[in-house]
C-alpha cells in the first residue's frame, strides 16, 4: 500500500494488456472470437482489394497449379470448422517479381516469380505457413491499431506504391492492406512470429524443417543475380537475410535433428509449365541470366521439354558472349527434335543459319516455320527474309 497509484496503474495496464490480448487472439485459439468494428471495416476493404486483383486479368488460372498449391496449404493448415472464420485460399498472380502476401481474411497471393524460385514442396509449405500466420494471428489489424488513423495509413500506403519505378508499378495493383503485406512487411516481431508458427505448421504437416531456410538462401542468391532489390518484402536483401537467420535459429532450437518430406520431384513435375511461363516473362524483361538458370534446372529434369529448349535458344540468341549463337542454335535443334511441330524453334534456327551463311538450311527452316504457323503474326519478316535470300 506504499505505492497505491503505481499499483492501480499497473492493474490498469494489465487489464489493458489482457483486453488487447483478447481482441487480437489468434484465430483458432478460442471458439468465441469475433471481429471488432475496425477489423470488420478492414475485412470489408480487403474484399474490394481482392475483387480488384481477381478481376485484373493477372491471375494464373491453371487448375493443376492452383489445386496443387491449395492442397499443400490444406496439409499445412487442415480445415478446422468452427474454430476460425478464415476462408483460406491460395491464388497465383502472373508476375515475375519475388512476392507473396496474405490478406487478413485468409486469402493468400503468391507470384509466379516466387513459385519459380521455390525448389521443393517443403519450401512452398514454409512460405504458405509464414503467410498464413499473418492472417491467423491477425497481424494486419494489430499493425494498423499501432497507427493512429487507419484510413490515413491505408491511403498513405497506396500513395507510396507510386514511386517505385519500373518494377514497382506492379505494386499499384495492390490496395493499402495488400501493400502492407507485400511491400513493407510487418514489424520484426510479427515476422519472427510468422516464421516460428509457420515452421511449426509445416513440421506438423510432415515436411522437413531443414528446407525452411533454404528457400530464403535461394532468394538471396537470386537477388545477387538480379543485382537490384525489388520493391516487395521478399525482394529486399535485408528482409531475406532476416528470414534466413530467423529460420536457422528456430530450426537449431527446436528441430535440429528432425527430418521429413521434401518432395522435390512432385514440385517440379507440377510447376514446370509455370516456371517455363515465368521464364518467358523474364525473357521479355531482359533478365537473361535468370532465364538461363531456371530453364537449365527444368532441362536437367525434362531434357525433352521443347518449349524450354526454344526459350533457352532465345535467351542465348540475346546474349553477346562468344559461343552464345552456337548455343542458341543447339537449343533450337533440340526443341525441334523434341517436338517437330512446334513452329517457333524453326524460325529461330532459320535466322541463326542465315546469319552464319547457311542459306539453304536457313530458307528451309523458315519455310517450315510458315508451313507450321501459316497465320504467324511475323509472316511479313519471314517472307521478306526468304525473298532477300532467293
Amino acid at each position, binding site marked *: 500500500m506504499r505505492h497505491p497509484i503505481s499499483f492501480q496503474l499497473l492493474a490498469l495496464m494489465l487489464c489493458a494488456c489482457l483486453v488487447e490480448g483478447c481482441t487480437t487472439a489468434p484465430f483458432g485459439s478460442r471458439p468465441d472470437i469475433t471481429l471488432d468494428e475496425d477489423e470488420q471495416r478492414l475485412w470489408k476493404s480487403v474484399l474490394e482489394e481482392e475483387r480488384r486483383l481477381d*478481376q*485484373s*486479368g*493477372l491471375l494464373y488460372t491453371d487448375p493443376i497449379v492452383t489445386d496443387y498449391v491449395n492442397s499443400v496449404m490444406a496439409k499445412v493448415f487442415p480445415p478446422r470448422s468452427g474454430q476460425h472464420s478464415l476462408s483460406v485460399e491460395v491464388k497465383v498472380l*502472373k*508476375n515475375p517479381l519475388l512476392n507473396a502476401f496474405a490478406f487478413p481474411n485468409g486469402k493468400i497471393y503468391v507470384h509466379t516469380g516466387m513459385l519459380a524460385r521455390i525448389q521443393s514442396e517443403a519450401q512452398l509449405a514454409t512460405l504458405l505457413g509464414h503467410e498464413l500466420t499473418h492472417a491467423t494471428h491477425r497481424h494486419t489489424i494489430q499493425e494498423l491499431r499501432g497507427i493512429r488513423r487507419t484510413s490515413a495509413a491505408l491511403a498513405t500506403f497506396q500513395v507510396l506504391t507510386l514511386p517505385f519505378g*519500373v*518494377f514497382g*508499378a*506492379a505494386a*499499384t*495493383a495492390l490496395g493499402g492492406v495488400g501493400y502492407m503485406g507485400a511491400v513493407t512487411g510487418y514489424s520484426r516481431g510479427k515476422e519472427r512470429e510468422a516464421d516460428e508458427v509457420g515452421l511449426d505448421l509445416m513440421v506438423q504437416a510432415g515436411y522437413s524443417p531443414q528446407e525452411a531456410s533454404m528457400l530464403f538462401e535461394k532468394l538471396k542468391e537470386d537477388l545477387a543475380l538480379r543485382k537490384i532489390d525489388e520493391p516487395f518484402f521478399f525482394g529486399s536483401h535485408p528482409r531475406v537475410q532476416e528470414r534466413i537467420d530467423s529460420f536457422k535459429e528456430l530450426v537449431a532450437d527446436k528441430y535440429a535433428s528432425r527430418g521429413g518430406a521434401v518432395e522435390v520431384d512432385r514440385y517440379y513435375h507440377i510447376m514446370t509449365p509455370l516456371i517455363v511461363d515465368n521464364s518467358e*516473362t523474364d*525473357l*521479355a*524483361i*531482359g*533478365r537473361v541470366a535468370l532465364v538461363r538458370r531456371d530453364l537449365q534446372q527444368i532441362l536437367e529434369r525434362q531434357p525433352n521439354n521443347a518449349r524450354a529448349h526454344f526459350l533457352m535458344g532465345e535467351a542465348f540468341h*540475346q546474349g553477346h558472349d562468344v559461343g552464345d549463337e552456337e548455343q542458341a542454335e543447339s537449343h533450337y535443334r533440340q526443341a525441334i527434335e523434341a517436338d517437330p511441330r512446334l513452329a517457333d524453334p524453326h524460325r529461330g534456327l532459320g535466322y541463326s543459319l542465315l546469319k552464319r551463311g547457311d542459306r539453304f538450311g536457313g530458307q528451309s527452316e523458315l519455310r517450315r516455320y510458315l508451313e507450321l504457323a501459316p497465320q504467324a*503474326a*511475323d*509472316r*511479313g*519478316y519471314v517472307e*521478306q527474309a526468304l525473298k532477300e535470300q532467293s
Partner: protein
Amino acid sequence: MILLRIVAGILMLSLGGCVGRSAQLVPAGSQTVLSTDQLEAEWPQGWMTFRPAEKDEEAVKQGLLFMATRDGFGLQTMRLNKRPLDGEFKYTQKKLSATMLPQEVAAIFLDDIRSHPDIVELKIVENGPATLAGSQGFRANYTYRSKSGLLRQAVTYGCIDKGMLITLGFDAPKRHYFSLDLPTFEQVKDTVRWTS
C-alpha cells in the same frame, strides 16, 4: 462560348502549371503541321494536339514529341516519339543498337509492352516490315486489355535512323474507335518526315 474559352484557358494554364511552363495544348483546327528541330508531321484537322513541357521528365525520357486526339486521349491517341538508342525502356531492360534488324527492334518494343505490369492479354495481330520517315522499320498491330479491363488495339510504326528510335503510335478502344480512326492515323504516318 466565352465561358467555355475561360474554362479552356484555365485548363491550359493549370496544365502548364502541372507539367512545366512550355506544355502546349493546341485546340482543334488551329494548326496541322507540327515540327520539332528534326521531325515534323501533319496532324488531322479537327484534332487537338499536345506538346509536353521540356521539364516533363517522363515525356523527355520516353522521347515524346507530340500527342493528338479528337475526342479525348482515352478514346484515341496518336503519339510521335524520338529517343536515343541508348535510352532505357520503361519496362524491359533490353537495349537497342544501330545494327539491329527491324524485326529485332520490333521484338524489343513489344517486349517492353509485354513487361508492362498493367497490360494483360497482349496479342500480336501483325508484326511486319514497314517504312517510317523514309526508313525501313516495323509496323506492329496488337490488342491488349488495359488496367480498367477495356480491350484496346494499337498500331505502332517504328524505325531506327540517325541514331534514334522513331515511333508513331495509335491507340484506341478496340470497339468502334480503333477502326474509325485507323485510316486517319495511316495518313498521318505518311506525312512524318525529317526536317534536317
